[in-house]
């Protein structure tokens, strides 16, 4: 009896705590919320101008994104890889590095995961699946390690190296699945992975896989590492003031390498999640630019892991809602890219928003 009371008290306490955390998050997310509202407002004008009913279009979008189990599954499926790439960008950014190569790290991670996923037969799931995921993370980590070392040893700027390595990844994987590893048939893709390497689907019949849960876990770990560990502390110190970090004895090179390797590993894991959970094979060009979306999402999320998850879900909802809007109302899919771009634009322009707020006489 008392145990039960204690439990329910604890749960209540926990809920109160989560609620207050959420409130402070919302409090801090004002510019983001305004940006999203602003984007939809401008989107309304665009829809009007192109002769569509905004209410109908947005209604169809909302219904498509959250209206039924398919929509929800599709929303979270689309959000998943972007959560990974956003976390990847964010983690490197905390050390002051601008990793814009998440796209390549994701591709390599997906590819190495596919290699391991297709290579073994008869391994038990609890060995094969973790191994494949690990391979994905390792592939991405390697793609982060190379620019990290170039930065630490030679001072090569990571914006250049990570971006260039993205192209290397793109064409390398493309070559591999077009030639040596091509499955029989017309499509440039590998054979299916063995079932022991598959990430389970968690919301059948949709494509949503356990990769989504993995993404949330990684978001939690990211928060933990940054806030509660010595190396996370060092990463943040380096990002905020490298001179002070150095004079306090922090090894800056080590910190930078760590940050970029972890960043790459997160993106690689995202690629592995796509391959093992959604496609079940490596398909050439499976990423429509998740790496780049991740960058935008991390910024919209206020460079905060929790915020990034929410922003990624927004992007996922736009994607999946946009598709059904297209089917239901004939509004071209492109409108969602307009909306995405507008959100980014508004977030990137906090001064503009502040100005508008001031002119509007708003007070928060």
């Amino acid at each position: 009896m008392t145990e039960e009371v204690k439990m329910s008290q604890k749960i209540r306490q926990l809920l109160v705590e989560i609620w207050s955390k959420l409130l402070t998050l919302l409090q801090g997310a004002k510019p983001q919320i305004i940006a999203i509202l602003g984007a939809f407002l401008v989107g309304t004008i665009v829809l009007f101008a192109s002769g569509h009913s905004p209410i109908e279009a947005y209604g169809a979008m909302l219904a498509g994104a959250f209206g039924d189990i398919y929509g929800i599954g599709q929303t979270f499926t689309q959000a998943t890889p972007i959560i990974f790439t956003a976390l990847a960008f964010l983690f490197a950014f905390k050390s002051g590095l601008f990793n814009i190569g998440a796209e390549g790290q994701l591709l390599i991670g997906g590819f190495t995961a596919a290699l391991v996923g297709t290579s073994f037969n008869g391994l038990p799931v609890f060995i094969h699946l973790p191994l494949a995921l690990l391979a994905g993370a390792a592939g991405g980590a390697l793609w982060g390690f190379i620019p990290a070392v170039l930065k630490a040893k030679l001072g090569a700027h990571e914006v250049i190296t990570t971006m260039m390595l993205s192209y290397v990844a793109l064409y390398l994987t493309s070559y591999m699945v077009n030639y040596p590893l091509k499955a029989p048939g017309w499509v440039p893709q590998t054979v299916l992975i063995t079932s022991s390497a598959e990430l389970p689907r968690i919301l059948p019949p949709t494509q949503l896989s356990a990769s989504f849960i993995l993404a949330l876990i990684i978001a939690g770990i990211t928060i933990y590492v940054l806030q509660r560990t010595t190396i996370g502390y060092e990463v943040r110190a380096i990002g905020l003031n490298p001179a002070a970090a150095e004079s306090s004895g922090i090894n800056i090179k080590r910190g930078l390498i760590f940050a970029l390797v972890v960043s790459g590993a997160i993106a690689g894991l995202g690629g592995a999640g796509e391959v093992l959970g959604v496609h079940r094979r490596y398909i050439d060009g499976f990423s429509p630019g998740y790496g780049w979306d991740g960058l935008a999402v991390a910024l919209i999320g206020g460079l905060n892991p929790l915020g990034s998850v929410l922003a990624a879900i927004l992007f996922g909802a736009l994607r999946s809602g946009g598709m059904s809007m297209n089917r239901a109302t004939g509004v071209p899919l492109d409108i969602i890219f307009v909306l995405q771009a507008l959100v980014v634009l508004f977030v990137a322009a906090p001064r503009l928003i502040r100005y508008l707020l001031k002119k509007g006489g708003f007070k928060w």
Partner: protein
Amino acid sequence: MASAVEMRGITKTFPGVVANDKVNFILEKGEVHGLLGENGAGKTVLMSILYGLYRSDKGQIFVDGKKVKIDSPSVAIKLGIGMVHQNFMLVPSLTVAENIVLGREPKKHHFWFDTNKAVSDVQALCDRYGLEVDPKAKVHSLPVGVQQRVEVLKALFRGAEILILDEPTAVLTPQEVYGLFRAIRALKQQGKSVIFISHKLKEVCAICDRITVLKRGKVVGTVDKNETKPDELAKMMVGREILSTFEKVHPAPGNIVLQVEGLRALNDRKLLALKDVAFEVHEFEILGVAGVEGNGQTELVEVLTGIRKLETGKISLNGKPIANLSAHERIEKGLSNVPEDRQKKGLILDFSVSENLILGRHDKPPFAKSWFRLNLERISDFAERLIREYSIKTPNRGTIVRNLSGGTQQRVVVAREFSGEPEFIIASQPTRGLDVGATEYVRRKLLEMRGKGSAVLLISADLDEILALSDRIAVIYEGRIVAVRERSKTSEFELGLLMAGGKND
């Protein structure tokens, strides 16, 4: 006649800090008005409100008797208010004339920049106010004092009738201070009003007609210069008597703690900055390093702390060589450092107080448990203890250090560096930019650490500070230690001569 400026009931709060609390301030036309107060008293904030950089939460501003709303510097400039900041806002690669006319360039044919007119306009301006500058000189080639003059001219060019000078002497040599005062008097004669922000009593008394003293965001009072004395002003500022001399116990200096021999190191421009530097520091001893800045002090500190490469030479701490150890390992061996530029090198301004207090020791027990987890409980306890012991004026341990005043920031650094019972302390310019109260506090702490047996290397450009604290004094000149003297057997005169490169044997 209406006052040049009247500020009424100005209140401004930052997260956790009341910077200005119902401040009233009146500037009469044609006067030089000193704004005096400790660091963090709210002087700069008040003037930033007047200049439109911040907006007050409450209060009104009148210029020439008319109520005005100043919500950006451009409005302030239109009202004839100009401000010269502590950190100059000049483009180093442009000439003086180009910098001064920037934003309102004279044009030929409505489009082309008229260089000749810019130069002649600026020359006319210089002549009118008796401020000598070569309009064609590049700004980066000018000494700091002249750059400041360019800032003043820039404000005048924009039609300033009211000039705000924020800690204008902080960066100047004594000769340059003299020049600045002459310029201020000339401006006053031309009918300009000047607000002189400072925490230096001597200067305020020398140049100002009236003085307003701020303390913790509130006005303590406004006094006429002729009706007050420096020590009264000092009392108003800190609210207690100032002890400018320290009683020092003289324990016998003990064993050698730090010894360096034949140090040679290059500066950032790959020139030899340290030339065969040798000295030693004992337990229970403060060794002062006197010298004009830029004679190798910065490089010396970097070499000792391990962030600059040593060409040749030996460094030993307690008899063990440390020249090959990393900065991190040296900290572990008991070296501690109060860096010259606390905001750049001593603190992570966007970290909280408690995060800053463990910087450098964050990866050791008790702050780390197992090999990678931070022990948040122990960190909080430690931060609370230090906040109490070192009277760090912060709303709480989670406050971001950026929001604290300069003096409080230095207390954070000092608390961190002294709490680890260091064997050897390097303190570079430890009281620079600090007000009387904070200065005294830091000096007292240094003496306390000496009394506990630490060896202290005190590097300071302030000769008074060196003389007040040191047991022995080394003079550095052009990368060499040119003399080492017992404090009791030397004088300000002799040291001054040595610092200027004069021979003294």
